């Protein structure tokens, strides 16, 4: 068994990491921008939606690849740590799928309907009508789920650095 993930899995891992960071940064920017800067605010929202939906798509492909190619062998970690790492990764996969879907629904439920597009070119259909009561529930759920995902990703990265310093070849397995 190889000790590294496949090239496609490694590339998609780093792509999804970059997209998650970018989507989070755009979320901060789009909320921070005043409404008077309408165009910039609108573009920030659309890019946030675009990258969020790309995260969802990339993670779907990653899950298919993960099902086809088992995880490479990892030595140097105790079974308990490996089990915890597996739980953490499963949680991240779940949130990587759930957060974009929650965001997609949140945008639809908002009282002011704004279309969802991929890079302003490809329209993404809506399945909900504006629903302020649902929006009031969805928005904080989307937000908390996103913060949880970012926190899990930060812990995931910090532990990877820790294990790397301890001589566990985690970065070699996931090199670009």
């Amino acid at each position, binding site marked *: 068994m190889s000790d590294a993930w496949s090239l496609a899995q490694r590339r998609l891992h780093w792509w999804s990491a970059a997209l998650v960071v970018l989507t989070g940064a755009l979320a901060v920017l789009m909320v921070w921008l005043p*409404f008077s800067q309408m*165009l910039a605010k*609108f573009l920030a929202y659309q890019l946030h939606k675009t990258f969020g939906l790309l995260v969802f798509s990339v993670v779907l492909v990653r899950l298919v690849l993960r099902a086809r190619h088992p995880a490479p062998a990892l030595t140097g970690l105790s079974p308990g740590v490996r089990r915890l790492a597996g739980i953490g990764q499963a949680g991240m996969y779940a949130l990587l799928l759930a957060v974009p879907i929650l965001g997609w629904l949140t945008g639809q439920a*908002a009282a*002011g*309907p704004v279309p969802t597009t991929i890079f302003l070119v490809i329209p993404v259909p809506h399945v909900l009508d504006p629903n302020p009561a649902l929006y009031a529930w969805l928005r904080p759920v989307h937000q908390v789920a996103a913060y949880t995902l970012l926190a899990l990703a930060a812990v995931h990265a910090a532990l990877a650095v820790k294990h790397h310093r301890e001589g566990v070849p985690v970065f070699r397995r996931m090199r670009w």
Partner: protein
Amino acid sequence: MRRAHLQRMGLPRRVLLPALFAPTIARAQRNTWLLNQDNAEIAFSARHLGLFTSQGRFTRFEARLELDATRTTDALVEGRIETTAVAIPFPGAEDTLRSEAYFHTARFPEARFSGRAAGITDAGGFTITGRMRIRDIEQPFTMAARLAERRPDPRGDVARFTATGRVQRSAFGMVADRNFTADAITITVGVNLLV
């Protein structure tokens, strides 16, 4: 129902409109209705980047409609809108619309309009031409109006009229965000008249 009956008879709107007010003719030749947010709506919409339309409305306004039931083409309307009472379902948008770049409500707290019916259109409605005053700038304004429905009500029949017109916001000095919001603003008015 009278309208449906008349439509079944194939009568054109120019006959239908005076007929609509037939019950009031006996009482007075010229009736006046006071309109406000309780029996009417004033909404506006704008296109953005050609991608979507935003819609808002005014929540406080008053208007007076004079209508000669025997000559609906001689209707008169005039009114004022409180520009601070703007409602649009986007966080922060109302403050932006009240700002100097738009209605500048601190200086121009109201908009005014007046007009009169100016003939029946080919589509069976009628045209209202008049003046619109926003930010102390007066411009000509035209709306296409029509009788949307007439329905029974415990107090008497209610006739619903709708009117739609377009203004160029730049003509009133509102030139901000032209890279995002179209210059043309559609104004839609709906009134429910107890007849």
